[in-house]
């Protein structure tokens, strides 16, 4: 089952962010959500993830879910490896996580506290955490933000491979990311 969103409405005071948004996000496909800033993409994702209650409307979403948030939301005192194990539990051992970190260009950082990593490295740890977590649906909010071109290419390839057979809903502003990664695209205008 994909993610079914029906007639979502959400306002913050007088500011209407979503005004009756509906969409069936296809099962096991990557759907990109594009749209200008302030069009409600992140709010839509927060509602779909259950972090924000809608004013009205419904969301049907299979569990479990995982996510890359707009911010990295990593535990800064923990190592990169520990941040991943925090969500995966014993599903992967240290060596397996180290191997996966290497595949996205993160060598010798598994035992470093996240606070010591650069912005791009943190983003990759946040992405790997989401990809390795047990999930039916992945919500990715600008997952390749802050990565240089070569790293972005490497990580997008990896991401495409790792999300095969999963329902992915991903927010981006980048047309190239969208073309490379997504099976379908929806454009959000102001008020959804």
């Amino acid at each position, binding site marked *: 089952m994909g993610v079914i969103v029906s007639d979502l409405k959400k306002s913050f005071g007088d500011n209407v962010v979503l005004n009756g948004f509906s969409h069936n996000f296809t099962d096991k496909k990557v759907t990109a959500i594009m749209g200008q800033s302030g069009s409600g993409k992140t709010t839509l994702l927060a509602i779909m993830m*259950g972090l924000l209650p809608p004013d009205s409307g419904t969301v049907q979403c299979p*569990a479990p879910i995982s*996510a890359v*948030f707009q911010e990295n*939301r990593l535990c800064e*005192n*923990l190592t990169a490896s*520990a941040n991943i194990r*925090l969500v995966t539990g014993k599903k992967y051992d240290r060596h397996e996580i180290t191997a996966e970190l290497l595949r996205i260009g993160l060598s010798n950082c598994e035992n470093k506290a996240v606070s010591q990593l650069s912005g791009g490295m943190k983003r990759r740890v946040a992405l790997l955490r989401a990809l390795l977590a047990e999930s039916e649906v992945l*919500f990715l909010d600008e997952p390749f933000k802050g990565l240089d071109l070569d790293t972005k290419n490497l990580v997008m390839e990896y991401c495409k491979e790792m999300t095969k057979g999963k329902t992915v809903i991903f927010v981006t502003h980048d047309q190239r990311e969208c073309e490379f990664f997504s099976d379908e695209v929806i454009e959000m205008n102001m008020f959804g």
Partner: protein
Amino acid sequence: MKKRVISLLCVFFWLVVWQAGAMALNQRILLVTPVDAAVKLIELIPSADFWKSVMFSAGRILSGFALGLTVGTGLAVFSGRYVFLRKLLSPFISVLKAVPVASFTILALIWVSSKNLSVLVTFLICVPIVYINMLEGIDSLDPKLKEMSTVFGIPPMRRFVGIYLSQLLPYFRSAAGLAIGLCWKSGAAAEVIGIPDGSIGEKLYQAKIYLETADLFAWTAVIIFVSWLCEKAFMSVIKLLVKRVEKM
């Protein structure tokens, strides 16, 4: 290695200054030489009475410290959760912070026997330090990590260790490091005022009464050393815990 040599040389320099000062003054009641203090300490160490006094004071001061850590942390957790409690405790903590050790001690002598005086005094010294540090840590907890853990469905125990404990341990470490030294200082001061039998404080008091300055220096050295040892041992345990949590 080089740093250690420099540190040792600095210590040696001050010992030489002390020795020269004491020799120039030539008044053993006012100032003994470091050699005299060391000789006295060597005389004290083999005696059973010495170890009884150390154990007596250490047991009580560390009990007060442990109790202060527990209560300070507990109060901070509940104050972080309930604004009313935080406001209610605010004047009480401010008073605890400001009241001099001597006032605590004299008041405490009315409430408890002099034997357990240092437990109460060190507890009262420790609570505000731990409370203030832990509350600062709790206030700085990132609420977005709570959302993250909800989305990923992280189990409660793993959530507690990975998210809360990992963020609060640095605050706990600095609070405990600061508190343990102060507990020894205030505990010894309380014992000097209350003079419980068989305590280090009693030995310091006797040194004052009989003008045994060498004893005073020797017992002071003992307090400094035991306090340092307790701090190192406790901090090592916390460090291990931090490393363990960091790597999960």
